[in-house]
């Protein structure tokens, strides 16, 4: 059954949208990420204009993060102090990001920049995750037990001022660090239509040195607000949030995320990392190839209102 999307101005099969929402929601629950990095490219593939896909997906990320955050909250796995500081950076970053988005849209470069951001940022993270996963999985096979290293590495950024004690995460680090990470991820989430979990989660683990258990809940917490900010600004500045599309995706993704979270809790972290890495690399590889392939028509058309 076809449904006409009022903002995207195309008609799409309802069942297809529900299935997309469900599938991506499942993966997002499984890996503890927003799922935007999969949904946005798929939406573009289905024929939704990239600007609408990005903005609508931001709206969808709110719902899947809310639905996911409760479970982590109940287990006490949300570091609210860390979350608020990340959020402050994320708010500024996403506001700047939507501004950049509007500018690029007017210049006709937004599609390219969206693709490039995916390839560069997501691709790198995916590759690293995959390698790390492979290493960890094969290492465990050999030694038969988990390797216990240092709690976290010490780097130059641990010398930054404004140190704050994060009791829940058992960290004593500079507030500038989560602020900066939040800012950077905020920009990316506005341009790429993602919550930013794929950068936030590794950054919190490797740069901040947060305990892995605390990372997912805290990142979901801050993603809710950053995605809300992006949705709001996109709706006001670009009028590209399609409520009908968002609702249809929501239904599937909220249900899917619940199943994903349950299964994810039973799986080993290393395997999750390996699988997520492989998935990310595949998505980025496709986008990268599309940039390299000679287009069928060098000219493309855009209707202006």
């Amino acid at each position, binding site marked *: 059954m076809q449904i006409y999307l009022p903002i995207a101005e195309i008609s799409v099969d309802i069942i297809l949208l529900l299935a997309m929402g469900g599938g991506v929601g499942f993966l997002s629950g499984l890996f503890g990420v927003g799922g935007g990095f999969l949904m946005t490219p798929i939406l573009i593939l289905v024929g939704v204009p990239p600007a609408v896909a990005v903005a609508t997906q931001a709206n969808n990320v709110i719902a899947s993060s809310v639905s996911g955050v409760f479970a982590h909250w109940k287990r006490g796995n949300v570091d609210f102090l860390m979350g608020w500081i990340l959020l402050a950076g994320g708010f500024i970053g996403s506001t700047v990001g939507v501004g950049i988005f509007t500018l690029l849209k007017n210049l006709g470069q937004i599609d390219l920049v969206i693709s490039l951001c995916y390839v560069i940022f997501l691709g790198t993270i995916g590759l690293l995750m995959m390698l790390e996963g492979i290493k960890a999985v094969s290492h465990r096979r050999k030694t038969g037990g988990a390797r216990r290293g240092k709690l976290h590495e010490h780097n130059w950024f641990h010398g930054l001022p404004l140190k704050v004690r994060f009791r829940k995460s058992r960290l004593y680090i500079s507030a500038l660090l989560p602020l900066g990470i939040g800012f950077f991820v905020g920009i990316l989430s506005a341009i790429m239509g993602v919550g930013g979990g794929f950068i936030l989660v590794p950054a919190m683990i490797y740069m901040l040195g947060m305990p892995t258990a605390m990372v997912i809940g805290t990142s979901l917490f801050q993603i809710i607000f950053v995605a809300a900010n992006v949705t709001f600004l996109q709706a006001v500045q670009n009028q590209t949030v399609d409520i009908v599309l968002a609702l249809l995706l929501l239904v599937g993704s909220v249900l899917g995320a619940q199943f994903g979270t349950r299964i994810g809790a039973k799986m080993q972290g290393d395997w999750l990392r390996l699988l997520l890495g492989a998935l990310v690399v595949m998505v980025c590889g496709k986008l990268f190839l599309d940039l390299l392939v000679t287009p069928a028509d060098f000219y493309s058309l855009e*209707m202006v209102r």
Partner: protein
Amino acid sequence: MTPLWQRLSPLARGVFLLAVLAFVALPKQSRAIEVDLSSHLVAITAGFSGDKILLFGSINSPGEVLVVVRGPDADFKMHRKEQVAGIWMNTATMRFEKIPSFYAIAGTGPLEEIASPTTRALNGIGFDHIGLELPVTKAAGRIAEQWKDSLLRNLLRAGNYQLASAEIVFLGEHLFKTEFELPANVPTGSYSVSVYHLREGQIIDARTTPLSVSKIGAEAEIYDYAHHQGTMYGIFAIVIALVSGWMGHLAFRKG
């Protein structure tokens, strides 16, 4: 309660029109052309995935028939891609202002054969006469020609422009019918459907009938709201997302 007429399928409406025309148009022979559409209003609703419009008409003397459907004017942006460091990116953009957002031609024969060049130029019939050329200040010569060709090619591919050179079917001596397709992404606004009766390349009579394409119902309201009340729309979208995320959580906690 919907009138009986609106509950009929486009085909049924067409057949009905045909019957009326056969009854009314032929004996009187008062006008040279009679014409009507299966529907003067195309409503874009939730289930919209394109539509077909049937056109029926009659002419009272021999000759050729040409139908031109023209949509409201709109601005278009064209981007040209080039390879930069191995990657294809838009390197040039050209804006085409006030050109028809929809343009379809159907005739009893190829346009060049049934209408003389002068007739086409004077009446703005055919892709060469609807202002697709860039102003000389923007581009000239071969470059301008390339932009224009690409614009036309893209509009044809998108279904905004259609060229069916011999799609008009005569049913007997006087009655004719044709059909044109509005794509799912059809631009909204006021259309005009012009029917020309030609002989030896000259227009001997013409009739124009209106066609309206508009978003109806919830779709139209959502679109208007998004474009005129962006702030409220944004807040509304966020609230919906928050509530449905929370409900998803609740539903699963209980179950």
